[in-house]
């Protein structure tokens, strides 16, 4: 609590200020009034005394006694004397004064007053003594009583002597008592303040002591305690509910997490049933799967002994049957019965006699009924609205998991089929290649032996036909090779034989030689421009040569006049190989088609040669070695094919390193 703003301190300080103000008022005003009253009283007493004395002097019997009083009075105290009507002392305790004029001791104004009136009193400020007098006309005397200043103000002196100490003592005591009283009054308020503060800090168990409080504060205190009580209940109630919900959601998430990683539908179901029963502490959990064709809900998994017996007995519902499970399947809604004895929809299972609450939740995936999750509890009112929500979510997860698992199973089967099909294809291709190459060995070579006249004379016509036979055989062989290549490329099973130090210029020479052979009947010039100081590159030499040969053969095939230029040059970290022809060109719409397998441009089709595999194979062969293949063409002018190959191995896309040192000669 901040002292500066303390209510108690403020009240105390105000109280002290009030006490001082009233003290000061007393000193200034009351004191004067009191003192005046005291003086007046003194004078009045003196006047009484004077009167008594005057009466006594008038009476002959008491005359002597009165005179004695006057004569024998103590000089230090009141001064009584008697004067004659002409103003001379007659009786005075001081004998020497007798017959002396009163005027000698008192001012004329006072003397005239005393002598001029029957009786009275004088309290003249300038003449500090107070005087009372009374005439005794029968004897021509005046009794005068003079109250000396000291005596007249005796009360004042006394009062003044004592009062300041008393006033301040009183003020001090008042302050102490007032402060203490204030403090005591304020204390319960401070207690309340402290309690409020503690509640604010979260100590909801804080209460105030009612017994010590005053009536007004007691009400405040009671209200406060009630409020704190409600706050505490609300808070802890809320906390409990949140904790409960968090726990349920955590459990549901736990179940979900476990099942979504499961890829076997039967195991998903078994997992869910067991986990749900254990984590939510349920009497029984079953999962029914929907058979859409037969409109049947077949038990897939049930927990406990009842579950085993139900499974053994082939437990199932028709979707039109009585019971919460079929009802939930029909309505595709969660069906809850929190007191099965009162529920007409409930259909008792003789194996589950302890069931008091049941919750059947449909397992839906994209609106399709996968099955029903059935939960049973031994307690009445087991399933709250929150529970139902959680179970609906869980059932959705289960539906997804089951669907995923089923899809995965289908996928596995499909994958196995595909793998098998692929295996069959590969085996077929390998054996086809083998089986075709063996007769081609005879066809190609016999025709060559015969046409070379090695076996005897042959005429030109025979030679021409035999050469066509050889060429056809070789063409068939290249088709077989292409089909094998594309099959391997498409199944990603093409293996490269990477070697370093390949001299592309040398390789190009052999390719150009083949090109010349293809052009021997045409008016087409084939020239090569090989850059100087070309670095050797790493790659699959046979495949690189295959690319170059394919592009050069294509150019030779499609160019009927003009020229073909092949070039090799270094471009940064790449070697650029290009083949430029003056052929018919390739229309832009065909730029992509020609790289598709078994497709050719219209020109290619008209030309009636080739498998339509050469370019796709070449492109892929360049790419799997980390290179690129592309073209530029203008219809009617010609085409240039480019191949860029990286110099180093590090840039290979598929560095399938096989032992080098091999030599594939053509």
């Amino acid at each position: 609590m901040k002292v500066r703003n303390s209510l108690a301190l403020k009240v105390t300080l105000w109280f002290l200020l009030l006490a001082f103000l009233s003290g000061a008022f007393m000193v200034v005003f009351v004191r004067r009034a009191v003192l005046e009253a005291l003086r007046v009283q003194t004078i009045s007493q003196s006047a009484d005394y004077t009167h008594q004395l005057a009466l006594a002097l008038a009476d002959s019997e008491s005359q002597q006694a009165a005179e004695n009083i006057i004569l024998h009075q103590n000089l230090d105290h009141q001064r009584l004397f008697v004067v004659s009507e002409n103003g001379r002392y007659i009786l005075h305790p001081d004998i020497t004064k007798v017959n002396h004029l009163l005027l000698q001791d008192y001012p004329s104004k006072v003397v005239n007053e005393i002598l001029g009136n029957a009786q009275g009193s004088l309290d003249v400020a300038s003449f500090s003594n107070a005087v009372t007098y009374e005439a005794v006309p029968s004897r021509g005397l005046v009794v005068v009583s003079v109250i000396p200043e000291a005596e007249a103000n005796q009360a004042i002196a006394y009062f003044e002597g004592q009062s300041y100490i008393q006033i301040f003592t009183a003020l001090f005591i008042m302050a102490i008592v007032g402060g203490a009283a204030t403090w005591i009054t304020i204390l319960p308020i401070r207690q309340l303040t402290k309690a409020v503060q503690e509640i604010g800090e979260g100590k909801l168990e804080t209460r105030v002591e009612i017994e010590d409080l005053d009536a007004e504060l007691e009400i405040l205190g009671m209200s406060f305690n009630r409020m704190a009580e409600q706050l505490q209940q609300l808070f802890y109630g809320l906390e409990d509910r949140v904790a409960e919900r968090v726990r349920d959601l955590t459990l549901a998430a736990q179940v979900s997490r476990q099942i979504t990683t499961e890829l076997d539908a039967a195991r998903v179901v078994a997992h869910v049933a067991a986990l749900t029963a254990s984590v939510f502490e349920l009497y029984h959990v079953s999962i029914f799967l929907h058979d859409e064709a037969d409109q049947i809900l077949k038990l897939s998994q049930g927990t406990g002994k009842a579950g085993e017996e139900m499974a053994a007995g082939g437990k199932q519902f028709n979707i039109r049957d009585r019971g919460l499970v079929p009802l939930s399947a029909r309505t595709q809604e969660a069906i809850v019965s929190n007191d099965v004895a009162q529920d007409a929809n409930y259909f008792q299972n003789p194996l589950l006699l302890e069931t008091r609450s049941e919750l059947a939740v449909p397992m839906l995936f994209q609106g399709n009924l996968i099955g029903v999750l059935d939960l049973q509890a031994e307690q009445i009112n087991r399933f709250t609205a929150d529970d139902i929500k959680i179970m609906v979510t869980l059932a959705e997860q289960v539906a997804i998991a089951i669907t995923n698992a089923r899809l995965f199973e289908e996928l596995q089967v499909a994958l196995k089929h595909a793998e098998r099909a692929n295996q069959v294809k590969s085996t077929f291709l390998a054996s086809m290649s083998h089986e075709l190459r063996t007769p081609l060995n005879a066809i190609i070579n016999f025709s060559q032996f015969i046409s070379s006249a090695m076996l005897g004379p042959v005429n030109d016509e025979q030679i021409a036909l035999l050469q066509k036979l050889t060429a056809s055989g070789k063409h068939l062989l290249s088709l077989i090779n292409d089909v094998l290549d594309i099959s391997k490329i498409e199944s990603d099973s093409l293996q490269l034989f990477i070697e370093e130090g390949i001299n592309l210029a040398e390789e190009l020479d052999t390719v150009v030689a083949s090109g010349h052979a293809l052009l021997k009947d045409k008016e087409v010039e084939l020239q090569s421009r090989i850059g100087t100081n070309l670095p050797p590159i790493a790659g699959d030499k046979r495949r690189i040569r295959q690319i170059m040969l394919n592009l050069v053969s294509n150019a030779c095939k499609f160019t009927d006049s003009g020229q073909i230029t092949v070039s090799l040059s270094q471009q940064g970290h790449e070697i650029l190989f290009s083949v430029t022809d003056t052929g018919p060109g390739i229309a832009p719409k065909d730029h992509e088609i020609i790289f598709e397998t078994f497709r050719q441009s219209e020109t290619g089709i008209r030309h009636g040669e080739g498998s339509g595999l050469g370019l796709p194979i070449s492109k892929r062969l360049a790419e799997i070695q980390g290179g690129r293949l592309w073209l530029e063409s203008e219809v009617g002018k010609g085409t240039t094919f480019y191949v860029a190959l990286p110099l180093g191995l590090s840039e290979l896309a598929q560095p399938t390193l096989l032992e080098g040192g091999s030599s594939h000669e053509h």
Partner: protein
Amino acid sequence: MNTEPVFLYVEDDEFSRTVMELLLTRALGFTQLTMFEDSSNFLKKMEALSLKPDLIFLDIHMKPDDGFALLTLLRSHESYCKAKVVAVTASVMNEEVELLKEAGFDGALAKPLDIGFCSEFIKRTINGERVWHIG
């Protein structure tokens, strides 16, 4: 070559044997060629003929023993372990060629035979170079 090399070809396909025979004896002019029609009793046949081949061509897909089995027999035989053994095969996929290399063949010739290259192939193989002509 000072002396004419001695060749052995084991091949169960008749046409292939004819191609090899025409190639070696008619086209290239060699005379020392022996051919077996199958792989049965391989070593016995060789011993019976007292063959000392310099270059042995083996078909791969044969019965009862395939080319690999014959290679193993040759390599483990005192008299033949120095002979050059070349596979002549129609199975020319990369992985198949890899198997040949691993098995220890001294080279390979693909079917159909590239007769234009065979003279050079024989020379280089006999000189100890391992040549894989599978294009």
